[in-house]
């Protein structure tokens, strides 16, 4: 049993052993092992040339990672907290994402950008953001969310094995949750959704920090006779629409759950996909449960802000009542 943080660590370690072009870089990833200890011990074992404490400059981190990738390296950049990716936005959106298309497919940039994401850890401002919608809307990036130690381990390895830039989200409040890591090989391709709990009455579509919340909600509702299916989307771009479509056609009802504010959030895309693909199977409009459309609030009230079991079941009740 490993924590999600340890599972990432072991995944990174394996990737570094398998390919000496893999580099880790970011603020405090070396001696400190990162503020969440995801890279703990790796500088000691792989040296300062492969686990690099960068200067404090996020645009610099992504920009130099692009240069390293052009030289044949496979950098994994850690952004210390979600709210600090914005100084690198230009390098990510205009350079990292577009390089392959700009070169007519010639130039790949295998750069992985790891972002500890989301709230629920009692942090101060800028340390609890869920900004996946920005990157999901950016063609040329893969955007994935791990939600369990098993996925954390395998998805980071898959991200590094591929040739595309990947925004790799790690839900902070799940870093310390333990779970098995399978050893036989990756349980699923990187871009596939997973049905984490089968059900017949309604489909919960979610990812990251709220996967566990949705499963808990489903379990809580079971004794009352509501049989809820939970799908962990895992890859939000590209999105595994086939898995979603199959499920909602069957259940006829869906609720999308994520931490980010709902307005123009990624949930809107899921609603649009479900509605267009399953229109004639839908018994009720797809509901969204997310953060409120406010800047992330102070820690003392974040539990009210984040989708919890009750708010999810409230939405389930609404789609079932329709």
């Amino acid at each position: 049993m490993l924590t999600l943080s340890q599972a990432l660590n072991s995944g990174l370690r394996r990737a570094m052993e398998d390919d000496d072009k893999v580099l880790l870089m970011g603020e405090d990833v070396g001696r400190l092992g990162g503020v969440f200890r995801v890279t703990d011990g790796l500088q000691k074992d792989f040296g300062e040339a492969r686990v690099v404490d960068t200067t404090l400059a996020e645009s610099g981190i992504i920009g130099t990672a692009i240069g390293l990738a052009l030289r044949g390296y496979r950098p994994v950049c850690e952004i210390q907290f979600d709210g600090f990716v914005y100084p690198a936005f230009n390098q990510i959106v205009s350079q990292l994402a577009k390089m392959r298309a700009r070169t007519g497919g010639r130039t790949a940039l295998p750069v992985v950008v790891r972002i500890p994401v989301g709230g629920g850890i009692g942090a101060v401002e800028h340390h609890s953001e869920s900004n996946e919608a920005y990157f999901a809307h950016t063609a040329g990036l893969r955007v994935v969310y791990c939600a369990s130690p098993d996925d954390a381990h395998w998805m980071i390895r898959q991200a590094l094995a591929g040739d595309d830039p990947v925004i790799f989200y790690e839900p902070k409040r799940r870093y310390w949750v333990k779970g098995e890591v399978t050893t036989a090989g990756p349980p699923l391709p990187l871009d596939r959704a997973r049905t984490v709990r089968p059900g017949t009455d309604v489909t919960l579509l979610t990812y990251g920090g709220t996967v566990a919340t949705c499963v808990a909600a489903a379990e809580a509702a079971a004794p009352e006779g509501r049989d809820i299916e939970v799908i962990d989307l895992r890859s939000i771009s590209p999105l595994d629409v086939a898995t979603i479509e199959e499920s909602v056609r069957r259940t006829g009802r869906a609720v999308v759950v994520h931490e980010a504010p709902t307005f123009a959030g990624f949930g809107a895309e899921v609603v649009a996909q479900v509605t267009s693909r399953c229109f004639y199977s839908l018994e009720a409009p797809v509901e969204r449960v997310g953060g409120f459309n406010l800047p992330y609030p102070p820690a003392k009230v974040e539990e009210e802000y984040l989708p919890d079991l009750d708010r999810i079941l409230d939405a389930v009740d609404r789609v079932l009542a329709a």
Partner: protein
Amino acid sequence: MTTVDLADPPVTNPFAGTTGLPRTSEGWTQLVTPDGRLHPDVDADHDALGRLTRDLYRGMRLARRLDDEAFALQRQGELGLWLQCRGQEAAQVGSVAAVRADDYVFPSYREHAAALWRGIGPADLLRQWRGVAHSGWDPEPYSFHIYTLVLAAQLLHATGYALGVQRDGSDTVVVTYFGDGAASEGDASEAMNIAAVNDAPMVFFCQNNQWAISTPTSSQTRTPIHRRGAGFGLRGEWVDGNDVLAVYAVTSAVTEHARSGNGPAIVEATTYRMGGHSTSDDPTRYRTDDELETWRARDPLARVEALMRAEGWSDEAFLGEVQAEADEIADRTRRECLALAAPDLADAFATVLADVPQLLREERDAFVAYRASFLD
């Protein structure tokens, strides 16, 4: 029970008009040696210097006490996080005391000593670290902007503010604080360049406390940070940041220089972060006890105490008085901290825009109704 007066004490500059402040072999301006001896070349009225020193000492001591108490409160679970300013009191108090009370300050997030000097009280200083708000105080009465957690962002705000001051024909100077780490961000360089090309009335005050979390300054920059002044065309000054009189003298000089329309300056104050980066940090992972000991021996408070003793500027009564005030600050800090209650999330909906548009209103109403449903 006395009430500590937190209003920025009026201070007169004993160095006004003096030139050629003494420097160490490293090139830092230093007026007081680490063991508390006044440099013989310091050419300032002895009594005025004594009064100034006592004022500064008081500010540093009160800040140390607040900082310690806040640290304890965090350890007891009353604060979510705290970033200690321990070790940096001379850099902060020396600089903030050197500027006028209406000179506008844009701090980073560790400037508790500077904030306290300006009269910002414990409740306001602790609020955001307790997780009940995102900012602590109304900037206006203190001419002291809220803390900025996104590194170096405030350097541009300060620069813009200074451009406004310039347009207003005001003689206000704008001071902004940042760290050795923040100096690497593009925003820091953009700000210095904009300030220089516009002759903005500004002081960029860098507290080089040797660390940005676990990253030492040597991994952050090849040159001392004040050299960027020359690169962009600002006046650059280097000062012993643990020598409060040197910080005061240098900051006074560059502030008046800027006030007179001679352009902005960058001051690098060499100091040390004696605590961890924050209460979440474990500095034993990256720095040695030896290093810590070396810098403990340079504690800026100890230096002022030694100086005051040596120069006959302090007596039992004065030290006792400051001690009593510090005790009171500690008390207040605890009391005010515990009184800081969580806000109502429903109120946040009215703080996003000047009005509450339909969708947000619907969302708030649904939230309030939903929450009420649990009370039934």
